[in-house]
């Protein structure tokens, strides 16, 4: 593939035969920032030492690079570098946070009253829901809270769900499908007052919006590298030191990461997530403003050109580059197939292979048919306004054609 094609404008790309569609699925993964790649490369080649072999210079240089990366990741969430555990990604971080806290509580419980209850939202990412389901099979009690039609948590309902048995609350910072940003500080304050641990899956939020584990009273925070223009295969879990949050590890062995996560640390990937965090720290505010403008341009264009279009999720508390909508009567898969020039999706990559409609959109109160029409678009660092305009035209065109076909089919009495 000629990389120049990717750098070209949409018009040029069309002229060149549309080698690759325009990438508008930045929730599922992001393109590695060239600056991140540049920082990583030496740690694949000359500086390949095992960071845990500190008896020689190769290992020490790798260890120093990891220390710096850890500080860069920590700085972006106002944490101490010692509070970060590198993992293979957000899925592992979420598994470690939830199962680790639950298993520790079960093993080392001191008081009479067991803490064996976990509260989460029915709209959480699959890896949170599956971790909870695994604990449920082990005898833990899980409450899956319904969300408001906006996708936001109901703080009253959350408060009512907490009891003396509640160990942990797990709420996603920003949603992977609908982009909704939860009131983290309010949830954190509520949890702290009740003596409950607060975990947040910040895979989508990290590097996109301001996160402060102190101000938001977050005890455990999951982070992903490849959602923030860093590499795949690396993530982190923030684990509060004061007051100390205790976990049982999922993976034991050499005792790396203070015993919380064994395994040789992948130095280039750690350097990559560190550099990605440092870039986000410097550019996040400006980037958010630019993405919000682009998203509003996309949303406005679609609203004007596609009759009946409806938005999913709260429009105020939303990630700047995120848009989720549906056109009643037009199945998402049909619309996506009709738009080969743009790369968009129906929702989470982890579940998009399934034929079931999004459980997230269903939880917002959408009918099965409407949920089946949900489209997710994620703009990112490398999205241009020309690409957004191209997407509007492409989608509007396809939606118009599909609506006309549906009308004809309806008149002929054959369902499509």
């Amino acid at each position, binding site marked *: 593939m000629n990389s120049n094609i990717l750098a070209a404008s949409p018009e040029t790309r069309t002229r060149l035969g549309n080698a690759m569609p325009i990438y508008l699925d930045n929730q599922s993964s992001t393109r590695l920032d060239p600056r991140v790649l540049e920082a990583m490369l030496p740690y694949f080649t000359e500086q390949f030492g095992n960071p845990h072999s500190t008896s*020689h210079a190769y*290992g020490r240089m790798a260890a120093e690079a990891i220390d710096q990366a850890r500080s860069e990741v920590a700085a972006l969430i106002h944490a101490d570098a010692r509070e970060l555990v590198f993992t293979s990604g957000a899925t592992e971080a979420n598994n470690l946070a939830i199962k680790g806290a639950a298993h520790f509580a079960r093993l080392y419980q001191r008081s009479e009253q067991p803490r064996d209850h976990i509260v989460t939202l029915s709209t959480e990412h*699959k890896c949170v829901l599956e971790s909870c389901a695994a604990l449920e099979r082990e005898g833990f009690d899980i409450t899956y809270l319904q969300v408001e039609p906006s996708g936001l948590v109901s703080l009253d309902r959350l408060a009512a769900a907490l009891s003396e048995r509640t160990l942990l609350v797990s709420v996603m910072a920003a949603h992977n499908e609908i982009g909704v940003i939860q009131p983290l500080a309010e949830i954190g304050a509520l949890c702290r007052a009740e003596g409950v641990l607060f975990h947040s899956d910040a895979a989508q939020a990290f590097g996109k919006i301001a996160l402060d584990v102190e101000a938001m009273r977050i005890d455990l925070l999951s982070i992903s590298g490849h959602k923030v223009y860093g590499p795949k295969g690396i993530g982190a879990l923030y684990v509060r030191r004061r007051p100390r949050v205790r976990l049982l590890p999922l993976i034991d*062995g*050499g*005792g790396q990461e203070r015993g919380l996560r064994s395994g040789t640390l992948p130095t280039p990937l750690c350097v990559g997530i560190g550099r990605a965090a440092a870039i986000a720290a410097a550019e996040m505010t400006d980037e958010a403003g630019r993405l919000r403008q682009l998203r509003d341009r996309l949303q406005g264009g679609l609203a004007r050109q596609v009759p009946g279009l409806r938005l999913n999720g709260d429009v105020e508390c939303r990630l700047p580059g995120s848009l989720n909508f549906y056109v009643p009567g037009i199945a998402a898969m049909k619309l996506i197939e009709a738009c080969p020039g743009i790369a968009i999706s129906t929702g989470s*990559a982890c579940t998009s292979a399934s034929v079931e409609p999004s459980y997230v959109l269903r939880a917002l109160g959408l009918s099965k048919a409407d949920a089946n029409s949900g489209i997710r678009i994620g703009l990112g660092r490398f999205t241009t306004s020309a690409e957004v305009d191209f997407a509007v035209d492409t989608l509007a065109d396809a939606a118009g054609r599909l609506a006309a076909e549906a009308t004809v089919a309806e008149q002929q009495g054959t369902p499509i």
Partner: protein
Amino acid sequence: VAAVVNAQPEGVVFVSGGTEANHLALSGSGRNRVLVSAVEHASVLSAVPRAERVPVDREGVLVLDALECLLAADARPALVSVMLANNETGVLQPVSAISAIARAHGALFHCDAVQAAGKIALDAAAIGADLITLSAHKLGGPPGIGALIVTGELELTPLLRGGGQERGRRAGTQNVAGIAGFAAAAAAAKETAVYDRVRLLRDELEAEVTAMAPEAVMLGAEAPRLPNTAAIALPGVPAETQVIALDLDGVMVSAGAACSSGKVGPSHVLEAMGVGSNLVRSAIRVSLGWESSETDVAHFLRAWTALYRRCRGSAFLARAA
């Protein structure tokens, strides 16, 4: 990646590395009774702390009779986990024989082949394991990616849950670049002939050291070994002293497993071989790579000779004598 051990591609479960693969194998096999060799990597030993440990002989080779007795003594379905090549000594285990014994007792067999892959030719059928662990960064690929290879129909209980990636056996977005790097390294790893040269270099290195210092001990040298590894003990001289002296002279070796660095303690591998505690504390690991040259070995020998001469008259050796 499957081709490294002549296995089927659908048996490959990509994970974050050897440690995770070992964990997935031991905790996901569904077998409550686990037997491991006493010289396994820390990731295996700590995955199931209650695992029964099968002893090794003075060369570090698993005592097959002991495995047979332990399996015969208890009818519960078991999992046997024995590494192919040891990370500290390079000693190879008789995996085919271990597999046969395990099979005869209805036990599953997991083989950690992290150190062996790429250095000697491997074949899943010959190893006879149900589960095989590989790590990319030990065979010339990138760190942060490894694989657990399921050779048969065994259903694994996943360690990480979430999206249904890796056929539901390991959730999480795949590390695509890491996997591509692993695949390229795996293709190169089929060419193990390059290690014929490395074996000659390693043997020469050991012969030179022995010629100069007859009291030096080559641990595990009587057993079949990887071509690149030498575990050399110089009685009376602490391993740390040797490592630091060699480091200052531009030679990077280690005092054992990297994972244990940071925690000070004698090697459980050498202790399990019955090596005396004095000798254990004086052992260093020298491991060559495919790119190691005669010049590198000569450099090592110069540095080691200087170290040896400095120590020979010192209190260390006097005390040892």
